[in-house]
């Protein structure tokens, strides 16, 4: 990696002041470093300054009460996975956290880093390949090897968003607290992520001088059931070939409301309005769940090597729906 100076964060004001005006890449935030270090070592990022967020006090707390959940950006993935309330009432989130990487990485990787992590695309991670996402002319995945790439929302950049926590949190209706030089703002996590058509270079709307500080999750609805299903080639560590975060409000076998968010198939966590519509208000059975899966992928546009993801996603959705009935 290139040389950089290293600053321990003392306050959010200090952090945003250090970040301001530098644009992307000059000054960077580091939390657990499980994603960023690999980028530094591969010279994909070459910041001049790193700000260590881990020294910010209190930002790793997880609070659970009647008003819902508040998770600090520095809470580790392991903290989330083993939190008893999350396990019990926000199962999809605990399951998603438990599916991340390996115990070692979960122990140091943070929530903020998980949401802001960069693409795993093998062209992107190769210093020598200057693809569209890095300001080059073409997306190499289009004619190249695209087994792990997007089937939905791709054009013109076919990365998939790698986060497992994001789909789960979006399915739970989470919002995000961000602090910038002008102060604090809260937005829905769903709107935080963007598609390449809007901005091929970034995966979210965070500005270079902003920092994610907290995720808030509304209280779990009674009678809700939630699941995180993640398909992968290998037990661990492995990113999702496709994943489904699903939260259902059930009345017996009838689905009163459904929240279905996909991971591993699009450049951003992908809410499937089609699957939700196909399930909401229905008695869920084999036919209905299959229909939900089929509807979810009807607009899929696979590349050369990833058509299998269409079937896979479809099957994961119907499996999740059927699980809600039992």
């Amino acid at each position, binding site marked *: 990696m290139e040389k950089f100076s290293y600053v321990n964060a003392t306050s959010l004001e200090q952090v945003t002041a250090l970040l301001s005006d530098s644009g992307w890449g000059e000054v960077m935030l580091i939390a657990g470093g499980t994603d960023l270090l690999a980028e530094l070592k591969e010279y994909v990022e070459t910041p001049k300054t790193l700000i260590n967020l881990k020294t910010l006090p209190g930002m790793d707390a997880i609070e659970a009460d009647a008003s819902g959940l508040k998770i600090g950006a520095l809470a580790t993935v392991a903290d989330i996975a083993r939190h008893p309330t999350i396990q019990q009432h926000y199962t999809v989130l605990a399951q998603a956290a438990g599916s991340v990487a390996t115990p070692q990485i979960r122990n140091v990787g943070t929530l903020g880093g998980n949401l802001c992590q960069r693409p795993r695309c093998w062209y992107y991670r190769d210093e020598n390949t200057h693809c569209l996402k890095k300001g080059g002319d073409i997306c190499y995945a289009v004619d190249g*090897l695209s087994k792990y790439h997007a089937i939905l929302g791709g054009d013109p950049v076919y990365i998939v968003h790698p986060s497992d926590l994001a789909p789960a949190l979006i399915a739970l209706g989470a919002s995000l607290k961000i602090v910038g030089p002008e102060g604090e703002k809260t937005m829905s996590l769903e709107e935080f992520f963007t598609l390449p058509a809007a901005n091929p270079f970034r995966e979210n709307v965070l500005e270079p001088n902003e920092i994610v500080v907290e995720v808030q999750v509304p209280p779990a609805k009674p009678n809700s059931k939630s699941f995180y299903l993640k398909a992968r080639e290998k037990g661990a560590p492995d990113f999702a070939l496709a994943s489904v975060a699903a939260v259902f409000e059930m009345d017996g076998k009838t689905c009163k409301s459904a929240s279905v968010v996909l991971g591993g198939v699009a450049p951003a966590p992908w809410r499937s309005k089609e699957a939700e519509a196909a399930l909401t208000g229905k008695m869920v059975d084999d036919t209905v769940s299959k229909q939900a899966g089929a509807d979810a992928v009807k607009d899929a546009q696979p590349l050369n090597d990833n058509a*299998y993801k269409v079937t896979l996603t479809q099957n*994961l959705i119907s499996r999740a729906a059927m699980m809600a009935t039992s």
Partner: protein
Amino acid sequence: MASWGEASESRLIGKRIPRLSGRDKVTGKAKYTFDINRPGMLYGRILRSEIAHANVVGVDLSEAEALPGVKAVIQIVEVGNKIRYQGQEIAAVAAETDDIAKDAIRLIHVDLEELPHVVTEADAMAEDAPQIRDDWAGNQSNPNVREEGDLEGGFAQAAVEVEATYHAPVQTHVCLETHGNVAEWEDEQNLTVWASTQGVFGVRNDLAGSFNLPANQVRVITEHMGGGFGSKFGPGVEGRRVAELARITGRPVKLMLTRKAEHLVAGNRPSMTQHVRAGATGDGRLIAYDMKGHGTGGISSGAGFQAPYVYDVPNLRTERVNVAVNVGNQRAMRAPGHPQGAFAMDSLMDELAEKLGMNPLEFRRINDPSEVRQAQYTLGAQEIGWHRRNSVPGAGTGVKKRGMGVGSGQWGGGGGRGTQARVTINSDGTVEAVTGTQDIGTGIRTAIAIIVAEEFGLAPTDIMVTVGDSGPGLPSGGSGGSQTTASVAPVIKTAAAAAKQKLFERIAPQLNAPVGDLRVGNRTIYVVSDRTKTIKWELATGQLGMDSISEGGEWDEELRQGGVAGTQFAEVEVDTEIGEVRVIKIVAVQDCGLAINRLTTESQINGGVIMGLGQALLEERLMDALTGRMLNANLEDYKVPGTFEIPEIKSIVFDTHRKVTGIGEPPCIPTPGAIANAVYNAIGVRVRELPITPDKILTALAEKKA
């Protein structure tokens, strides 16, 4: 005539004895080459080409040389040379720290004139492909054709025929300890190298030649080794260059390959594509086999594979070519040519059996000439519960479907001459065994201790074993071809026997008995005809004083034998909705002659099965046609089995005879075929390309439905 004696007479040989270095390894105390740090040591790094095919137009080292902390920079390619694959060495540096070395190689400016590359076999074989080797017409070698019997006559007798194409991609070795060395010159004439190698003497001789030194002035040490699988014989470019860097700087230098370089240049298992047409008679005899195939070993050749394999075919024609691509060269990899050949052959056997309406095991019994495997089929089938398999493939109900399959393999492993060993009895009662073989993880250190301890009535932990050092000047061959134990064991055994004989000769007069009547056991030498005459081991050896006994060993044909057979049964569960294949159980029945140490033999089988499972389900080198670069030169996207993938493995050491045979390689051979057949049995659709990943399962199932 020398022999290993009967099983009933053995106290240690053939028992399950924990590896002597086990504790050191799991506690991190064991020193691998990576762990060697010498006083004043510098760090070496190699600059490699990221371009797959190019002319070298210029190399400028000056900026790197000027970087503070850089002690030496050497150029490896010359202007006018050709770069022929990604990863090819351009220059090397030695610096005070690894970080400086890493910075320094980025300051070397290389001017390359890019040439059109081909990195996939499809591109290389295309009509208008750029030619990348000067010595071949096109990118394919001359076909190698073999003909036996009467092919058309054979097909005329066939009641059923199968025509299919099987493919196995390039796999890399993924040695957990990457290739590398620490080199240190004592003076201008004496070089010591700590090497991560499978052959300390091979490395010694190569380096002695490179630096024009008498061989005994180069000492190579490999105390522990983190995996080689056939890729770690010579010192390689990195070994010769690190010695050069150490010589120039007058300081020790460590240079280990990066994980990326390990994938790119440290060898790989060639790919295999075979298009086969085969026929069997109505009564189940394989009668005709026609195969046209190719594979790539990178820019070199060497893409051989076994076809047909194991089973008898009287009438055949095979034709194969090597395809050259701008990618790093192949090297021997655990049973070269066998696992991929076995996968294709065992898949084909099942396809033929199905057309005949025959149980695939029955069909094998008819065509398999090996008596050992015939017996193994029975044992393995019992262990896995073969009767439980789907008689109609894909017949199971539900989303998760189970199936079973079988695969076979064979290997040599008989060892050979070329090992020298010495067994020493010291006056304090300690016993040393020294030989120049190396323990590459297979447990030869422990095997040597067992053999010597058996001879002296001691415990394996009583024996001080020195291997992995060329210093004592007792050569042994490289650990390849599953030859180590069979090559070393006879020599150790005869050395120990000779030393014992010498000790008995000294002690016999005191015991007033003929030498031939002396025995040793339980740390006591006694007279077999009069058990009251005894002398404690330490008392006996104490009389040696400065005059310790030290005897060499001799090669003895009678103590070893080549040729092993193996068969494996797999049970898998396939999730038909998400395409995941989970291996439930592997039964591996492996003949290995006399297992010196049953425990490490079982470990070896377990390891082979896991490696075979990786080939079956996960591993594939992915080359990008456009950029000419490997896309998964890491351990994230090049996936090897982890704990979640490892099934119940029932390793059965199948006793055949009491002569030593090696089995380092063969246990990985039958696994991919057994798993592929089990997948078919589970879902009723055949995947003819490895690795069998979810995308292939889902695509195959979709095609079946359509």
